[in-house]
């Protein structure tokens, strides 16, 4: 039984181009009270357009209604649980937004003189120090704009370190359970990728690491907990094997929500890692960002961090560009500053014990969902779960229903789908990460929905195979959309 309030109740909504009619305007500007300037004269005639072809013309009320109706067709964390595994879709506390809108922070200009930007510099300085404390690392750069950008920056630091020692080395080791961005990062940084098979518990196989580790290996990229939601209990031993050969250990911090306040990568052999502030530190997420993927390093990689660094100059803070070994800038100015403010607000609002509690609640919630579902869905790796749990569709696919079908049916029950078909080492994966911000009532609704769907598959598999039924748009043809995409609207 579907018990949750759903959205998707909206009627058909045209494109903004389709509701346009000539002459309508959504603005009224005051009369010009300065002399008019001819743009062609000021900018050169080549830079001036008479009109923009097909530019939509609608009134203010129509604009507001159009976008409000579109927004209600979307699903968001503010509608309900968003159990998209590996993405840490936690609630974004409103106090973050309040702080980020503080006038001096929201209106700061990147070219403001340092003397008038001391508050902003302090935000950067304090957040860097807090993130060092959380990760057990020695220095942090807040510049990277997202997780994959952080990975790329981190591996560029590794390359810079090896180059300074005379040999950039050739390859990066990546476990077969890794995020797809890890091998992509290695390739973008000019390294070959060697995949390392997991053992039958879904963990790093130390013997495989020992066989692969040699002087050609620049680093191994490890996600901990890994993409099965399992803590890599031998990561310190893997790190020792790699360090013996002069290779670095990169930790993909996408799953830090399982570790904050409990375990520190700097204490288990990690040399460099990134954090996703838009996951672990509750800054808004999805819709393309903006995000932030700070990179944290041990001291031997610190000289290579992007410029500028914030340093203390007597009582004042200042930007330091004089760092000859730096890999340079990786982002305009100082990263996505508004995101950094939100992450600092979150950290200060929680305090150390609060962050630790959040982590424990995230683990508790994942294990609660796991316990409620494990009689209904197969779990191929049954090592203890951290912040997420991964099932397979083995039992359901015997009836012709796959993980993607179950995910579509979950939309009918008023939830965003879990992560489908990832990690690849689980055939037909259902990857569920509820996060700490879900109350028990919501977790029960989610578990009840997935149990109901398992029963539906027994009684009427076709109902699930043709889902969703309650949405404005029924099942879309993803294959044709990918094979023959229509990328432009035409009148």
């Amino acid at each position, binding site marked *: 039984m579907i018990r949750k309030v759903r959205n998707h109740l909206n009627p058909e909504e045209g494109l903004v181009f389709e509701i346009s009619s000539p002459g309508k305007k959504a603005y009224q500007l005051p009369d010009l009270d300065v002399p008019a300037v001819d743009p062609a004269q000021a900018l050169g005639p080549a830079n001036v357009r008479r009109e923009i072809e097909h530019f939509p013309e609608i009134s203010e009320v129509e604009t507001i209604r159009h976008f409000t109706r579109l927004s209600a067709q979307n699903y968001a964390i503010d509608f309900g649980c968003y159990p998209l595994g590996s993405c840490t879709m936690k609630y974004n506390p409103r106090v973050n937004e309040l702080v980020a809108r503080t006038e001096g922070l929201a209106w700061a200009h990147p070219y403001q003189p340092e003397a008038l930007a001391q508050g902003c510099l302090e935000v950067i300085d304090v957040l860097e120090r807090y993130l060092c404390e959380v990760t057990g690392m020695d220095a942090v750069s807040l510049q990277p704009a997202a997780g994959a950008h952080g990975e790329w920056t981190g591996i560029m630091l590794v390359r810079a370190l090896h180059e300074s020692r005379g040999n950039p080395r050739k390859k990066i080791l990546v476990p077969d359970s890794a995020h*797809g961005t890890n091998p992509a990062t290695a390739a973008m940084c000019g390294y070959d990728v060697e995949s390392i098979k997991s053992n039958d518990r879904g963990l790093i196989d130390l013997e495989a690491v020992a066989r692969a580790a040699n002087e050609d290996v620049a680093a191994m990229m490890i996600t901990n907990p890994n993409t099965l939601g399992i803590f890599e209990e031998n990561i310190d031993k893997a790190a020792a094997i790699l360090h013996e050969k002069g290779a670095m250990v990169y930790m993909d911090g996408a799953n830090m929500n399982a570790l904050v306040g409990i375990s520190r990568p700097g204490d288990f052999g990690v040399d460099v890692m990134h954090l996703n502030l838009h996951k672990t530190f509750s800054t808004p997420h999805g819709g393309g960002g903006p995000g932030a993927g700070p990179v944290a390093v041990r001291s031997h990689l610190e000289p290579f961090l992007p410029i500028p660094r914030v340093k203390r100059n007597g009582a004042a803070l200042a930007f330091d560009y004089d760092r000859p070994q730096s890999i340079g800038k990786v982002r305009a100015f100082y990263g996505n500053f508004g995101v950094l403010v939100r992450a600092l607000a979150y950290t200060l609002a929680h305090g150390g014990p609060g962050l630790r509690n959040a982590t424990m609640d995230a683990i508790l919630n994942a294990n609660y969902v796991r316990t409620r579902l494990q009689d209904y869905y197969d779990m191929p790796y049954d090592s203890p779960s951290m912040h997420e749990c991964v099932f397979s569709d083995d039992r359901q696919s015997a009836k012709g229903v796959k993980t993607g079908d179950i995910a579509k049916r979950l939309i009918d029950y008023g939830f965003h789908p879990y992560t*489908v078909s990832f990690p690849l080492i689980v055939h037909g994966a259902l990857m569920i990460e509820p996060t700490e911000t879900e109350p028990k009532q919501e977790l029960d609704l989610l578990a009840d929905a997935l149990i109901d769907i398992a029963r539906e598959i027994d009684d009427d598999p076709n109902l699930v195979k043709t889902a969703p039924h309650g949405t404005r748009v029924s099942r879309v043809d993803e*294959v044709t959309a*990918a*094979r023959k995409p229509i990328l432009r609207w035409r009148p």
Partner: protein
Amino acid sequence: MYPDNYRYTKDHEWVTVEGDTATAGITHHAQEQLGDIVFVDLPKVGDSCTQGKTMGSVESVKAVSDIYSPVSGEVIAVNDSLSSSPEVLNADPHGTGWLVKIRVSNAVELDGLMTAAAYQEYLGGSH
């Protein structure tokens, strides 16, 4: 299902050789695991390829997977029809869904690949 005159890799490619020309593709099992294939990235004619090394990739609605060259040599033809009709790779992976033709540089490499019977046994054991 798996032609007897083909040889197979552990990474689920197949290859068949006539004279010094090898034709290669991915196996029925590979396309089945990938699901609906939406994009195929192939090497260019004239590229050289090395046994066991990446020579391209296939993208399905689920994932992107590397294709490893089953033999070493020079690429002398690629199946251009796959760029407009990747679904052929799902429908006929061992025939019209072939990927590349390679001028084989070291025929001895074929001895290290599996027969159809050995490949099916391999599939039965580990996926």
